[in-house]
């Protein structure tokens, strides 16, 4: 029988952030697909709906907002659970993210403990927005 682990997709140009997610993925029961750019993530996301999508806001070329707008236009991702993460911590960015239907806007840095809690809430618990 197919053992369907939850899938988390991370799109972040920060190598350190991808490492952080990989470290947490190794100790938790989910499958991580980590991409360094919006463009690189699209091949997978065009036809796959993850259990949680985590998108960085500021990236070279296509930024996180543009990526999410593009994905939301795809019926597959109209309500894909999404968290935005950013080194920016401005109210206007929180509003922009909320308008795209994200569950939560996380200001970097994020600790392993906070990341585990976020995943437990949204992936394992299917939780509602916390903020």
């Amino acid at each position: 029988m197919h053992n369907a682990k939850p899938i988390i997709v991370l799109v972040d140009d920060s190598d350190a952030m991808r490492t952080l997610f990989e470290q947490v993925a190794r100790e938790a029961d989910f499958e991580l697909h980590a991409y360094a750019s919006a463009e690189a993530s699209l091949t997978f996301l065009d036809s796959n709906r993850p259990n949680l999508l985590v998108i960085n806001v500021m990236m070279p070329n296509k930024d996180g907002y543009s990526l999410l707008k593009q994905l939301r236009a795809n019926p597959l991702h109209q309500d894909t659970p999404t968290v935005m993460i950013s080194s920016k911590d401005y109210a206007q960015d929180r509003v922009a993210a909320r308008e795209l239907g994200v569950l939560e806007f996380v200001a970097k840095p994020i600790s392993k403990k906070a990341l585990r809690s976020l995943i437990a809430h949204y992936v394992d618990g299917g939780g509602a927005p916390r903020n």
Partner: protein
Amino acid sequence: MSEAYLRFWGVRGSYAAPHETHLGVGGNTSCVELRAGDHLLVCDGGTGIISLGEELVQADELHEMLVVFTHYHWDHICGLPFFQPAFSPDWRIEFFGPGDTAADIERRLSDQMKAPYFPVETETWMADINYVEPHDDGMRHGPFEIRHFNVHHPGVTYGYRVRIADKTVVYVSDNEVQFLKTSIAKRIHEFEEDEHELLERMVSEQRSAELAAIENVDILIHDAQYTPHDYSKKRGWGHSCYVDTVNLAIDAGVGCLYLYHHDPTYNDDQVAAIHRDCLQIIAERKSSMECHIAREGLKVRL
């Protein structure tokens, strides 16, 4: 190609400051003209663009231009409703800025002229107006090669890297440098000891990205809005402390830095004091970088 130069038409951040005590530096908000022969590139449409427009119409020499916007905060667009070339059928004007489509750019620029904010809408513009469809491969406008990149400011905000006459000019009007570094410093207690190496990598990555955008450029026009004292109260407003700006420029090997987006509450003496401190930092770091105050009306040959 005949003479290439840049000229500052607006150097203030946030709002215009037309006070007698400020006019040595200038009171208008963001606008920089880059000219190469018959080709004209304008960065931002703050109140400075109004005087530029008046001069262009009076001179009646050029009839085409590209105007690029870093973002749509009002100090960067509020001169546009008074920009004479837009109201003249003699002109062809292209506009570009953050947005997913040309229609996005048009909506963001034209909304400020809708009722109840303004008496006439963009339908009254008689120029041939075009909004440039966004793409990641950069743009050409005559001899200008233009690339945009994301900077650290609320919402999506661009910096521009312009290649012209064998020189590279980078225009970054609004940018809060070193933000992640200070976020980590404030929240370090949330992290276990074994996470510190990753945090250092994040800081290093952000610094590398900040430096890469301006590395070895001939001229950098950069946000230097706050003194250290004011920045301590306004961290998170999306602007830089001049100390961070000058150190970033030195680290990046910039040839000449123009301190820009001056706080509207600072008079000429206060901006001069910021400049003196920057020169002191440059001397202490034994850097050969030039550093000047971006003053309204200042023309720099390229």
